[in-house]
């Protein structure tokens, strides 16, 4: 498959009117800017949990997936092992592989561009891209959202980390509660789907029961098994698999990058 032409040329040769592309760009920019602002919370929480400013910034550059970053920082800050922190972070990143399946067909990229597209494959770029009416608009939505979120997210992380560094004792400022609130905010839009809500309740109970029993960090990993069991048990609820980007697109800004 040939590398697709530069975006402007593609827009001109596309049969669809230019409007969907412009609409996609506008939507992408607003989602990108709004999402990037969460990076401030992440940077502050990372430093509050014992990461250096440089380490906080490295999570945004290298992991670049909000939920995974909050998980890594949370488990490390709670005294969990490296393995537990990496496991929690990585399990949350599994959904990005599913997103790659959705965006791959309309991106149609190879080589270096595909390596770059992979790094930008996150909740927001997938949701905005998949929600557009034409392939050209989908590509615009994906790339503009991905690049905007990446830029803003990293700058905001740096700002938040410097801010957190200046604040001192995180508990005095309630930053430990802010971390809990961040996870709840990421979870919130998913609770609308009934099976996901049921899984969340059971996973929360499993984690609560395991905290005093197993090493720090493992309750979170064990809770992932609840999702696996629910997924394997299958169609019992009659609900669709969920998690399609076009459904998520309307859900606003609940997701981290």
């Amino acid at each position, binding site marked *: 498959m040939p590398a697709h032409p530069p975006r402007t040329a593609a827009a001109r040769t596309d049969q669809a009117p230019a409007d969907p592309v412009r609409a996609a760009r506008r939507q992408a920019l607003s989602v990108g800017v709004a999402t990037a602002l969460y990076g401030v919370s992440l940077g502050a929480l990372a430093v509050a949990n014992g990461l250096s400013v440089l380490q906080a910034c490295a999570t945004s550059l290298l992991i670049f997936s909000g*939920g995974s970053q909050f998980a890594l920082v949370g488990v490390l800050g709670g*005294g969990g092992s490296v393995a537990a922190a990496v496991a929690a972070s990585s399990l949350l990143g599994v959904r990005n*592989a599913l997103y790659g399946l959705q965006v791959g067909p309309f991106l149609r990229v190879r080589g270096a561009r595909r390596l770059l597209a992979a790094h930008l*494959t996150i909740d927001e770029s997938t949701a905005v891209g998949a929600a557009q009416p034409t392939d050209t608009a989908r590509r615009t939505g994906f790339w503009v959202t991905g690049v905007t979120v990446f830029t803003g997210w990293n700058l905001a992380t740096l700002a938040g980390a410097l801010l957190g560094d200046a604040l001192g004792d995180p508990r*005095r400022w309630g930053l430990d509660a802010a971390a809990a*609130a961040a996870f*709840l905010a990421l979870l919130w839009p998913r609770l609308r789907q009934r099976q996901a809500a049921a899984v969340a309740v059971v996973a929360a109970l499993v984690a609560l029961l395991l905290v005093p029993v197993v090493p720090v960090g493992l309750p979170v990993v064990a809770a992932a098994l609840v999702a696996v069991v629910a997924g394997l048990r299958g169609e019992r609820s009659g609900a669709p698999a969920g998690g399609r980007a076009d459904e998520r697109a309307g859900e606003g800004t609940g997701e981290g990058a």
Partner: protein
Amino acid sequence: MSTWVAVLVAGAIAYALKLAGHLVPARLLEHPRARRAGALLPAALLAALVVVQTASDGDRLAVDARLVGLGVAAVALALRAPFLVVIVAAAASAAGVRALTGWG
């Protein structure tokens, strides 16, 4: 040092997962059950993280001002407040409880 190991390894795995979605033949990841489990994974993990971040202190369960912050966050989310407002409201309420009552 171990923090760097965690950051770098988590970064490598995060990228490998993203790339896998672009490289792996769709049929391997598109099995309905695998898809469903993958779609439910974030809800399970995030719920567990909420509990651990709110109610644990190392390997002990603990009830303190964080619970107040989480309650305020839930109210803010129900009122459709933006992410940053939710975070700030949770932090401010927990900090306020600690400053005013000395509890938690």
